[in-house]
């Protein structure tokens, strides 16, 4: 396993300069997710209008993988429908678990997280933001 596959420029850039960081003041949906074992903590707030994500922000603290994954995710889910997000999340899980060697181009910068598949203990860091997003969409705030 090469650290190069994990700590890519894109990951480090999103970690050090996260996009869409903060909380939406009046979100339509919200959820908070934890990785109990390592202390990652991510809060996702959403503004959903007519089934489309019109705004999304994340806050929290954690490792580079969890934070970069959240930052990248906020970029790619904006403007997508709730159904599209479910499909994307599925594709993302397949990629980081190593079930899909040729990730869908819809995943955008998230493809930078493909190397996580070689680090099984880091999979839950990468998926935390996506699980938290899916949880938020289930909960009408």
């Amino acid at each position: 396993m090469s650290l190069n596959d994990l700590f890519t420029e894109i990951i480090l850039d999103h970690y050090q300069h996260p996009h869409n960081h903060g909380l939406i003041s009046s979100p339509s949906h919200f959820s908070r997710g934890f990785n109990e074992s390592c202390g990652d903590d991510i809060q996702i707030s959403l503004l959903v209008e007519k089934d489309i994500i019109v705004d999304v922000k994340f806050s929290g603290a954690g490792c580079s993988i969890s934070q970069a994954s959240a930052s990248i995710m906020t970029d790619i889910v904006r403007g997508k429908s709730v159904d599209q997000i479910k499909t994307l999340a599925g594709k993302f899980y397949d990629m980081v678990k190593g079930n899909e060697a040729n990730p869908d181009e819809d995943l955008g910068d998230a493809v930078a997280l493909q190397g996580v598949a070689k680090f099984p203990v880091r999979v839950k860091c990468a998926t935390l933001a996506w699980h938290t997003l899916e949880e938020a969409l289930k909960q009408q705030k």
Partner: protein
Amino acid sequence: MIRNHIKSDFPIFSYWESRGKPLVYLDSAATTQKPLRVISKVEEYYSQFNANVHRGTYELSQIATDIYEEARSKVARFINGLQPESVIFTRNATESLNLVAYAWGLNNLKEGDEVILSEMEHHSNLVPWHIIARHTGAVLKFIRMNHDYQLDLDSLRQILTAKTKAVSVVHVSNVLGTINPVKEITAIAHDAGAISIVDGAQSAPHIPVDVQDIGCDFYAFSGHKMCGPTGIGGLYGKYDLLEKMEPFLGGGEMINEVFPTTSNYAKPPYKFEAGTPNISGAIGLQAAIEYIEDLGLKNIEEHEVALGDYAAQRLAEVEGIRIFRPHATGTGVISFTIDNVHPHDISTILDAEGIAIRAGHHCAQPLMRKLQVQSTARASFYLYNDRSDVETLARALEKAVAIFSPRKKANVLK
């Protein structure tokens, strides 16, 4: 002094060496590696003496019973307990502390009574008391920790009242390595009419322990943190207290007579050992105790303190590091953070170098909040670690800093 080449006593090191991935194991506060002597003893038990204990009417069962009870005596002598019957075999320190919380706490605490813990407890000495407090209405209070990561005994004296029924503290912190003055704490507790409980999970493996000298009423420890197998631990309790306590778990082995709707119980320690115990674990634990006694607990302690001191000094050279270790009573546990490099990322980078450390909250979330960190990285040393392990760690940490420092990255990752 710990003799050279001690790693050769532990097969796991030669296994990984032979696979071309030498193991730098710095997570002994989580669990220690096992010497061949312990592994062989467990194998010998299953190969030669396996039978259930305390109920067989045949020779093999008697042999199994004798060696199981011999292990109990060994444990009692190891911590200088008054009598073997004061030692209850459990799965680990967590179960031992739960046993006290349930079997003593449920029946001795009432609404408004107080149990005093400390700000540096492991979850195993917090959560059982949360549960018991909810059942009984007892109140939990906390001894404060000062800026040198030591317990402030004045704060203990201040919060003690006539309602304080128990003081339960960790002997050696699994995060900070602080050695707490449990003898003094016990004396203060007893003066106030409270019992004293000591979580010895991180003391029994590392420093000489004498429960009579400490004077505590209960002392809990785990076998797997002191070269023994997983799934075996112990609780020492003062015999008169054990006699008065209700059982913890019910079932076979712990009874005297059973009727359809009632039962009465065996004497301690059997009252607290329901079901077939971990016989091979107890025998492995005895072998582990013999192993560390041969090395000498005082030697182990000196070795670890020296290594911890050296590591604290060497790691201080790493850019952006913050070390959480008391100046006064540091041991072989070094928790730290590095600016801009998350502990989990540190752990992954070290893992790629064959170095095993722990990253996270170390089952001490309230302490993490007190330290104002979300998590830390922790290197914990044991008798088989040496200065070269510290050097390997320090270099890998320097690499981690470089990876997360963009201007240097290109030179580090190839």
